[in-house]
């Protein structure tokens, strides 16, 4: 039993116990099990992390076989756990941030009748995600990949009495299955061409993928893997499910749809980097898709009115950054941004959750304002997170974003072609936009005076489901509505995450400050994983240029937001066509409905009418009809008169005799 077994086992046990007995447990009982499971997993993950941290680079990978699943001749499928710097980092993020969100949820979900169910699913998610990152082969990665999709489905549709939530859950599941299919095809190809699914062949400890397959095959594998990433990590063209996933409870958005599950794609690209390194086409596709998505989502985020949707598009945009970083070989930067993003985006969601909680479920920023005076802690944590994501030094986001941007520039400068200059420019523009929409959010929520009219239900659709609302909302409608700071169990995780958002980036590279050039502990830590990758370094001057521009644009974005919204957020309808285009999220959902869903529905209805009626049913109905017809004829023979039968017997006997006589 390695330590990783325990990391996996704890949340699994929590899930099983809660699933079987949760209904009968008191709230305290549920919390003890759920917190205990996740907390112990975090503890074991920490132990694992430090065991890797202390190890010399050449022994930083421990691959343990746990169980052989299938043995058939030479063919073997085994379940092994891989502990290396990459999986240790991921496990720390998953269990650590996961544990904080577990704490927070106790306050957020306090009044919900599905309390135990929520924590049961949460533990299940932690298990599935830990399985995804600690499996040592593609098959169990796929299993984890599918299970986190299931957890996501269950938690998006957690409030299953509400129709939008159920629709969003289905949308997420369907789109993710497209990605899962890509992953499956990629795995089949890997198996055919490399003969194994393990990342490392066990005895030799060398990467399986160092042996080359035909280039086109490698490219196909990489593109299929990346298709899976675009679905799971909400990149173009499969990003549509993530904004809708905001229908789930806010802690779910924080844990699954910001900090951990959506980063699985980033992890997969980093894990499969020996393959991606062999295919420049695939890597360029990763970079371009990442860049386009980053800008695309950022522009949408600028115009959203629902605070959670702003954060959702912001997540898509930041994930695009990570892929951009990986697209220029800087996997370390991608994983680094993943880590810091987990801190500040979880913090943003949790702070937004505290606001939503205080306003009894209100998510529209037009109905907010002035909360700074009532919610001090939330204001400060939200502000820190906003500064972090805007890339303002010394907050966490600055360091990771800066590494990605300077890698892009370096790739362009060292002969990578114009493409990477364009991507670098896109990254800078996105950085400015990010700062703008985040501070638009900050001012809309916290500045000026409260604009709301008291308890208002969340969305239009909700008004129909008013009866089934959570008790908190019902109590609000009874007139006991007041804006209050969240309870301690919610603010403590906020403060911890805020601390991480401030200092979490300091493990990054300080290359731009000459005297600290040797300080890059995070890259050092991950270096055993990415040993075979060479990252292009930009000259110091270019690095300063990139850093200066990104910080400058970030500050500019904040300044513009301050100019526009410092006196409070005013929403004005704008008839400008471009404005309307972005406001309606480029009409992607509408276009998809018209191009894909309507034709599919039409095909279904037509098939129902034509095929089902006469062609398919016709066959089975025809068989019955034929049998009935023939038996109606045959029954005539059965007259019931004995002499007819006797005659038939006689006739038969005569025939037989004649046959023998004629034959001789």
């Amino acid at each position, binding site marked *: 039993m390695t330590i990783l077994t325990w990391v996996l086992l704890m949340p699994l046990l929590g899930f099983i116990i809660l699933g079987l007995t949760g209904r009968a447990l008191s709230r305290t009982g549920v919390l003890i099990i759920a917190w205990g499971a996740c907390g112990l997993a975090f503890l074991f993950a920490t132990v694992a992390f430090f065991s890797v941290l202390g190890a010399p680079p050449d022994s930083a990978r421990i691959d343990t076989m746990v169980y052989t699943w299938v043995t058939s001749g030479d063919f073997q499928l085994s379940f092994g756990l891989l502990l290396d710097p990459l999986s240790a980092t991921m496990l720390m993020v998953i269990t650590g941030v996961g544990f904080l969100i577990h704490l927070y949820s106790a306050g957020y979900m306090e009044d919900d009748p599905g309390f135990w169910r929520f924590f049961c699913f949460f533990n299940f998610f932690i298990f599935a995600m830990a399985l995804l990152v600690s499996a040592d082969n593609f098959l169990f990665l796929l299993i984890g990949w599918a299970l986190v999709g299931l957890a996501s489905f269950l938690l998006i549709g957690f409030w299953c009495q509400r129709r939008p939530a159920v629709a969003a859950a289905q949308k997420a599941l369907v789109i993710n299955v497209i990605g899962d299919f890509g992953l499956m095809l990629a795995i089949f190809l890997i198996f055919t061409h490399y003969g194994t699914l393990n990342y490392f062949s066990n005895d030799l400890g060398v990467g399986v993928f160092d042996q080359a397959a035909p280039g086109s095959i490698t490219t196909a594998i990489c593109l299929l893997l990346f298709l899976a990433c675009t679905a799971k990590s909400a990149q173009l063209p499969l990003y549509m499910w993530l904004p809708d996933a905001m229908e789930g409870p806010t802690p779910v958005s924080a844990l699954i749809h910001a900090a951990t599950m959506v980063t699985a794609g980033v992890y997969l690209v980093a894990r499969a980097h020996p393959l991606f390194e062999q295919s420049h086409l695939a890597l360029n596709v990763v970079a371009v898709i990442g860049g386009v998505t980053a800008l695309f989502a950022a522009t949408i985020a600028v115009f959203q009115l629902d605070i959670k949707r702003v954060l959702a598009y912001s997540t898509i945009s930041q994930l695009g950054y990570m892929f951009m970083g990986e697209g220029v070989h800087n996997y370390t930067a991608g994983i680094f941004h993943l880590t810091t993003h987990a801190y500040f985006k979880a913090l943003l969601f949790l702070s937004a959750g505290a606001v939503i909680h205080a306003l009894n479920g209100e998510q529209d920023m037009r109905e907010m304002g002035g909360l700074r005076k009532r919610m001090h802690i939330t204001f400060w944590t939200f502000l820190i997170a906003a500064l972090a994501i805007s890339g303002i030094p010394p907050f966490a986001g600055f360091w990771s974003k800066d590494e990605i941007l300077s890698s892009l520039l370096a790739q362009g400068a060292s002969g990578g072609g114009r493409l990477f200059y364009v991507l670098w420019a896109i990254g800078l523009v996105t950085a400015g936009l990010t700062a703008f929409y985040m501070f638009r959010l900050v001012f809309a929520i916290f500045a000026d005076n409260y604009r709301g009219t008291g308890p208002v239900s969340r969305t239009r659709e909700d008004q129909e489901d008013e009866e089934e609302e959570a008790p908190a909302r019902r109590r609000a409608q009874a007139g006991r509505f007041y804006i209050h700071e969240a309870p301690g169990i919610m603010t403590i995780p906020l403060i911890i995450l805020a601390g991480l958002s401030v200092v979490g980036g300091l493990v990054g590279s300080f290359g731009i400050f000459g005297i600290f050039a040797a300080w890059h502990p995070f890259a050092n830590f991950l270096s055993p994983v990415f040993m075979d990758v060479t990252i292009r370094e930009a000259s110091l001057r270019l690095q300063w240029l990139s850093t200066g521009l990104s910080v400058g644009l970030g500050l500019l974005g904040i300044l513009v937001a301050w100019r526009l919204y410092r006196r409070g957020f005013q929403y004005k309808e704008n008839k400008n066509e471009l404005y309307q285009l972005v406001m309606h999220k480029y009409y992607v959902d509408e276009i998809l409905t018209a191009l894909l869903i309507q034709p599919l529905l039409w095909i279904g209805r037509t098939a129902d009418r034509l095929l089902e009626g006469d062609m398919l049913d016709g066959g089975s109905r025809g068989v019955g009809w034929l049998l009935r017809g023939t038996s109606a004829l*045959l*029954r*005539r*023979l*059965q*007259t*019931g*008169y*004995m*002499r007819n039968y*006797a*005659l038939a017997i*006689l006739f038969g006997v005569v025939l037989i005799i004649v046959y023998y006589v004629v034959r001789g």
Partner: protein
Amino acid sequence: MQIPLSWYLIVSAILFTVGVTGVLIRRNPLIIFMSIELMLNAVNLSFVAFSSYLDSADGQMFVFIVLTVAAAEVVVGLAIIVSIFRTRRNIDVDDMNLLRG
């Protein structure tokens, strides 16, 4: 003078045909039974003829078995006829067509 085997067989065939005809055309079950007996005895006759012709006792053994079976059959058959007569007051075979499909 020895009577040739073929004569016996011809008599046997004639008897058998008479029996078959009786079974097919008569409507009284008692007569049908008699006709069946006629058929059985036609067969018995050919058995005995063959037995003597081949100098073997096998044929005679068969005759005894056939006689036993015939007796048993008549017992059962007559019992059925009596019970049908009791319920329907009529034993015309043309009225007995309950098993018509």
